[in-house]
């Protein structure tokens, strides 16, 4: 390709997604301004086509309800979703998600939140566990209700995302007014798929939330594998599969997060060959059973659920990830500078090894 004629004033868009997460192991609340400031430092990693945040511990007064965040193209779409959900759940409370008008956030969808409890007498799916019942409802809305998407469905947590730079999306959703014991955040530079509201990170299901820098080349295989297990991908961004794969492997199949990370980023076969026999058998079996859940391609992901946070790189570390600790807080980020922005004095900073997760569990 020839350089453009006006190459001397051509500004290449040098971006590559940014992720940030902070967790306080003792559940001390962290104001939304911390992840927002951290993301501002990494502003140039995105291009304004996606920003989002996940926050845990933000709905303590309704901690037993499933907090559904739904975006709708119009009032009719929201009403269709609401009518459907009211058939499956008792709606304890419903309200618009508080927003501000932000100049740079154009044509936002309508956003509402619903605090739901499964009906005592269920109209369908009576044989399912409660979590599967909720997953079934999310899948139904996202695949079969035109113009409406559930973008958050966990308890005492919520995600907020859209098209814009993260600081603009935070402004839109008034995240400076929230406090949470765990936050993740994402700055998007879409490469293969459109920058639209549902396709922004985090991707969620129940209390899972995932932010991701990279691209998942195995998306097709992962998606077909998930389809066999009744997870349907509708959001047009590769990262969606990570949320559903974790739900399948960790919640349904009982794998630990450490085991799931070996599925996502398995050791190389020559490393497996050098293992003691028992270990070699275990890794071979894991690969045989969950080969279709392997994530190929570059990634740095932050995974959160109600128990804590995990940071993980692909096995050849094609994306950056830095971890730092300060007292009861652990930070994970694409760039150390973003951590220093919100916490100048750190106890420890390190770059984790490729394919080896950093898992931080909440206490009590």
């Amino acid at each position: 390709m020839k350089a453009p004629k006006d190459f001397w004033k051509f500004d290449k868009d040098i971006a590559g997604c940014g992720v940030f997460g902070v967790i306080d192991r003792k559940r001390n609340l962290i104001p939304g301004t911390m992840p927002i400031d951290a993301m501002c430092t990494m502003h140039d990693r995105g291009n304004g086509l996606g920003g989002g945040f996940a926050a845990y511990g933000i709905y303590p007064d309704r901690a037993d309800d499933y907090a559904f965040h739904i975006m709708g193209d119009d009032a009719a779409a929201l009403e269709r979703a609401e009518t459907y959900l009211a058939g499956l759940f008792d709606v304890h409370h419903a309200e618009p998600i508080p927003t501000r008008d932000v100049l740079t956030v154009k044509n936002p969808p309508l956003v509402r939140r619903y605090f739901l409890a499964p009906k005592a007498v269920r109209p369908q799916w009576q044989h399912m566990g409660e979590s599967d019942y909720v997953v079934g409802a999310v899948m139904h809305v996202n695949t079969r209700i035109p113009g409406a998407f559930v973008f958050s469905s966990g308890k005492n947590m919520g995600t907020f995302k859209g098209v814009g730079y993260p600081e603009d999306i935070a402004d839109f959703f008034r995240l400076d007014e929230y406090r949470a014991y765990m936050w993740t955040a994402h700055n998007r530079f879409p490469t293969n798929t459109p920058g639209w509201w549902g396709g922004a990170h985090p991707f969620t299901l129940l209390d899972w939330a995932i932010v991701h820098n990279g691209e998942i080349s195995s998306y097709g295989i992962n998606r077909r594998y998930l389809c066999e297990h009744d997870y349907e991908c509708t959001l047009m961004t590769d990262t969606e599969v990570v949320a559903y794969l974790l739900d399948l492997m960790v919640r349904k199949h009982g794998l630990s997060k450490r085991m799931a990370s070996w599925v996502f980023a398995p050791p190389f076969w020559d490393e497996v060959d050098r293992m003691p026999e028992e270990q070699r058998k275990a890794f071979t079996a894991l690969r045989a059973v969950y080969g279709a859940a392997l994530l190929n391609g570059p990634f740095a992901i932050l995974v959160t659920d109600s128990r804590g946070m995990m940071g993980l790189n692909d096995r050849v570390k094609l994306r950056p990830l830095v971890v730092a600790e300060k007292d009861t807080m652990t930070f994970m980020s694409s760039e150390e500078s973003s951590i220093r922005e919100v916490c100048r004095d750190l106890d420890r900073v390190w770059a984790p090894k490729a394919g080896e997760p950093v898992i931080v569990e909440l206490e009590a």
Partner: protein
Amino acid sequence: MADRIIIDADGMPYRELNVRIREAVAAGTQVIDLHGVRGQRFIGNAVEGDVSINILGVPGQDLGAFMRGPHIRVQGNAQDGVGNTMDGGHIVIDGMAGDVLGYAMRDGSILVRGDVGYRVGIHMKSYLDRVPVIVVGGKAGDFLGEYMAGGVIVLLGMDTGKPEAPVAGRSLGTGMHGGVIYIRGEVPEHLLGPGLALSPLDEEDGAALARHVQAYADAFGKDAAEILGASFVKVHPRSHRPYGNMYVGTN
């Protein structure tokens, strides 16, 4: 213009910071102190001359890329892409550094007190008396010196936050066809890329190593004799032009 200026970079966008640095260099400033640096990219990019730039904080990606001449010292950690295609000058990092440090470096030196990330020194090259040098006081991730065509990497494995890890990662020197990597201590053979050998150092190697270790010791107040007190091995290609016939036969 003053011989020395201080720029408070706290919250300053990277373009503005780099314009300020270039203006100062153009005016003949000898020493530029940058305070409160947090993530600003491209500091010192393609700057020529022997100006000194002292950085307090964590500079952003591509520190000192394409530069020819300046002395940059970072009091803190550096991120990814330090010294990308660097053409001369010196970068000293009193901390650790991220991935892809010294990519396609052509001349000058980079000294890192602690650990470095993945893909350090890949595509390094040399020509006549232009021999780039990277000295790492800690440990390195995978693909150290991948596709290396020239230059010197010294890996000490001493000042590290990863005491249990091997000194280097897997695929060490994969595709290497020139230059040399000196490593202090043991190197597990399975980490080596194909077509490479581990050998003891000869006299010429010893003299070169001593020079580079002395530079490292001087930069960070360490004892060169203590560092050189342990055994070193060198990683080098088994043959001359090992990939000469890979795509088109030449002989």
